[in-house]
């Protein structure tokens, strides 16, 4: 495994639109980039991969003027450039979708798409009608049906991601950079996105594509650059690399260590013979859900399938009491949980790992330790005073068990990589010793290593008797990870797949609402 097999010789300079020379960048003591030579050619889709915290996003931010490098040069179209701010890069022709959705929630979809370059009428004022019209056309071409005049913040994360794509597309760019654009997208939207990407490539645009869903790389990308701990460890054609080698490069381990079976790290199915611990029935959320029911047994993993906006997030949030529900009951081990109260749900033994890590999960300024212990403070306190030593012990246990990488438990959680932030949140919920764990996209945006850790963790938890509800936009994860998959469409349960039915093909058909297959009679309240 040669750690520096960069193809600096092949086709050098030919068609290269964007390149870096020995870029280094550090944040305080963290060396995010250590001498990266990245080359992007026009008309190629270039994958950028690496573990969480490998420096992918940092590289992108250096390329686009968000950060200035500590040393090294960025060249665009052969000329050295030093973009002082993202606006400069954008004006130069680099269009970027950053990792976290970076749009303005309080503005309408159309406004978000055209912010900064709104169509004008002859008085030089914004032509609202035209802007809305063009935005609607653009959004429609991406296969999304939304009112472009609605506030962006009211839409699900996935839709927001598509809006970001629409925005990036609407610029006439020479380089398009996409930092994990697919992490919250459904198969169908992913396909749309790929279509768009290929069209752009064929027009000679250079694309950078970051994803932790490795299969997508071979499907879409021409070449790949692998980063590890801020170093560039490999650059080459995508086709020359097999999955295992790629992972080995990423993780810096031997091939043998990596070699495991299956697409995911889930184990076999679990026992199905016990009484359900969670029974939710008749859940109504105005405008979102109609009569949704769910039942989960201890030790069982129930998947929630559905398209973008089908109401999966709403379902788990309503069960957890985080979303006011108009009707419906939630019972844990037979006793009802008070409606619309997170506190009661928590005490009854429900935990929810929410989809939006940034907005609903981490407390950025607090330490890893305080983030983990947040939900269980009363248990570790006497007379309102926090017992530090007991918390330290607890945190140490979980940091070790989940392999949380942080310089110390006192490190602010905002400094952690996405995957580690996710693990911190999982640790927070496991501390509460839940009976039911609702996981909304638990592997979103985390690297293969972390992902398999999280997956086997879920498996392990289920083995230990935890009831798990798993939402995932990745087909494999649902099919392999869940014992049953409940399919939602437009806020209602339409099908349930269990046992033999649990195949990708069946799931796909169910998601699309295949009329051939009647809705399974057994779904609803009793699961």
């Amino acid at each position: 495994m040669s750690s520096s097999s960069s193809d600096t010789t092949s086709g050098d300079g030919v068609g290269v639109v964007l390149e870096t020379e020995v870029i280094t960048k550090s944040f305080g003591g963290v060396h995010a980039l250590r001498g990266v030579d990245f080359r992007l050619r026009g008309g190629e889709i270039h994958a950028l991969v690496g573990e969480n915290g490998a420096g992918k996003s940092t590289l992108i931010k250096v390329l686009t003027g968000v950060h200035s490098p500590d040393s090294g040069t960025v060249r665009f179209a052969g000329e050295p450039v030093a973009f002082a701010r993202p606006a400069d890069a954008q004006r130069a022709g680099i269009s970027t979708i950053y990792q976290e959705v970076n749009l303005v929630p309080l503005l309408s979809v159309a406004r978000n798409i055209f912010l900064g370059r709104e169509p004008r009428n002859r008085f030089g004022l914004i032509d609202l009608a035209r802007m809305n019209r063009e935005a609607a056309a653009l959004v429609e071409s991406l296969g999304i049906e939304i009112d472009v005049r609605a506030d962006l913040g009211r839409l699900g994360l996935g839709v927001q991601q598509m809006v970001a794509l629409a925005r990036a597309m609407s610029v006439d760019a020479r380089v398009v950079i996409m930092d994990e654009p697919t992490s919250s997208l459904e198969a169908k939207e992913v396909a749309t996105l790929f279509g768009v990407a290929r069209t752009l490539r064929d027009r000679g645009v250079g694309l950078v594509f970051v994803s932790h869903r490795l299969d997508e790389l071979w499907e879409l990308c021409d070449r790949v650059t692998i980063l590890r701990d801020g170093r560039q460890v490999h650059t080459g054609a995508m086709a020359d690399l097999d999955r295992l080698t790629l992972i080995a490069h990423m993780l810096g381990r031997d091939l043998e260590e990596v070699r495991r079976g299956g697409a995911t790290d889930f184990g076999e199915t679990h026992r199905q013979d016990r009484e359900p611990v969670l029974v939710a029935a008749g859940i109504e959320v105005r405008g979102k859900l109609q009569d949704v029911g769910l039942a989960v047994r201890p030790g069982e993993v129930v998947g929630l399938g559905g398209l973008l906006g089908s109401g999966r997030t709403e379902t788990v949030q309503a069960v957890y009491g985080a979303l006011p529900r108009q009707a419906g009951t939630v019972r844990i081990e037979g006793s009802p949980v008070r409606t619309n109260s997170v506190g009661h749900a928590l005490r009854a033994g429900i935990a929810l790992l929410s989809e939006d890590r940034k907005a609903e999960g981490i407390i950025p300024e607090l330490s890893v330790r305080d983030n983990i212990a947040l939900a269980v403070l009363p248990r570790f306190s006497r007379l309102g005073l926090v017992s530090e030593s007991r918390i330290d012990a607890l945190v140490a246990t979980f940091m070790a068990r989940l392999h949380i990488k942080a310089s110390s438990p006192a490190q602010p959680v905002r400094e952690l990589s996405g995957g580690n932030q996710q693990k911190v949140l999982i640790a927070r919920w496991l501390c509460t010793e839940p009976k039911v764990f609702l996981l909304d996209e638990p592997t979103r945006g985390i690297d293969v290593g972390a992902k398999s850790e999280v997956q086997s963790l879920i498996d392990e938890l289920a083995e230990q008797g935890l009831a798990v509800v798993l939402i995932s936009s990745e087909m494999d994860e649902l099919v392999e990870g869940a014992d049953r998959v409940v399919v939602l469409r437009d806020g209602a349960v339409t099908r349930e797949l269990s046992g033999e039915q649990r195949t990708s093909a069946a799931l796909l058909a169910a998601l699309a609402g295949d009329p051939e297959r009647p809705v399974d009679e057994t779904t609803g309240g009793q699961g």
Partner: protein
Amino acid sequence: MTDSTQASGSPTSATPDTKAGDADGPTPAPPDVPEPPRPWWRPRLDADWVRRNGVFVALALLVLINVIITPNFVSEGTLRLQLIQVAPVLIVALGMALVIGTQGIDLSVGAVMALAAALIPLYIGYGAAIAILVALLAGCITGAIAGSLVARVGVQPIVATLGLMVAGRGVANLIGGEIKSIREPGIVALGTGNLLGIPYVVLIAAAVSLAVWFAVRRTIYGRRLLAIGGNKRAAELAGLPVRRVLITTYVVCGLLAALAGALLAARSQASDPTRLGLLIELSAITAVVIGGTPLSGGQVRVVGTIAGALLMQLITATLIFHDIPDSTAQIVQAVIVVAAVYVQLGRRKTGPRKGATATKANTSPAVTP
């Protein structure tokens, strides 16, 4: 393709901003060897250290300047006087720091002080203790109203407390009427007495500081407060009693403001509902922010707040010591305040987007890089 492409020719000129006064400087090569850990007795005395501890540095500087240029500055009396005078502001600032930690703000503190002071003469007939208890209770009630408006109704803190500030001052004037002298020995003793040579007022401020520091660092309440200030929605989803914590915080802030009002009344032996605590909210907020607590919430710096309050006090004192006319005094004060905050917040520049952290810290609630 704009002019930005021609901006620089060499690798070094591509990073113009990282050098100027930046402690970390450019890292030329990827250092593989980790830096040897710095022994704790040798703190980094570099620009970054100065920035993180800006308020203390500024305070030390001002003391030094005064020692050199101000006659009679180096005396027990001066020190004592500054401590006495800063005490009420500090107490208010500590409550304010808690509120700011929740991403809120409390403009009503001055009115609460006036209200508390106005109540004392009315209840002085029942004895000093009862009168002060009533005053403190009034502070709690006002705080509870502010807290409920913020936490239950969802009114923005600055507006809720602005309304309370106007109405509260009116109520204080209504019940207090004209300025009244307070001659009750218990109250007078509170304002002027000493314990082991240390004025009660200073002791009380010290005790409050300690209590607030302890609450922030060691209690569930403090942990929850920081979590709510850092990311309210996440705190809600983590099952924290968000409303209760918010209301408690405003109650504590009101209580401390009332305490400060009572102390001021005791010290001046009078209750003046019209003037007492006028504009103190601004001094308190300034002290908190100069002390390094961001207005964006999620953090509370108690020691910084103490230093911030002392710094503000010393600025005022210095200007009076040198008999600077009001006009110049205000201008000087403005410049010092900005300079102090600049030093404090100008830290950790990562690139050309100078101060992006500080700016967004002030506007958008949850930010992660």
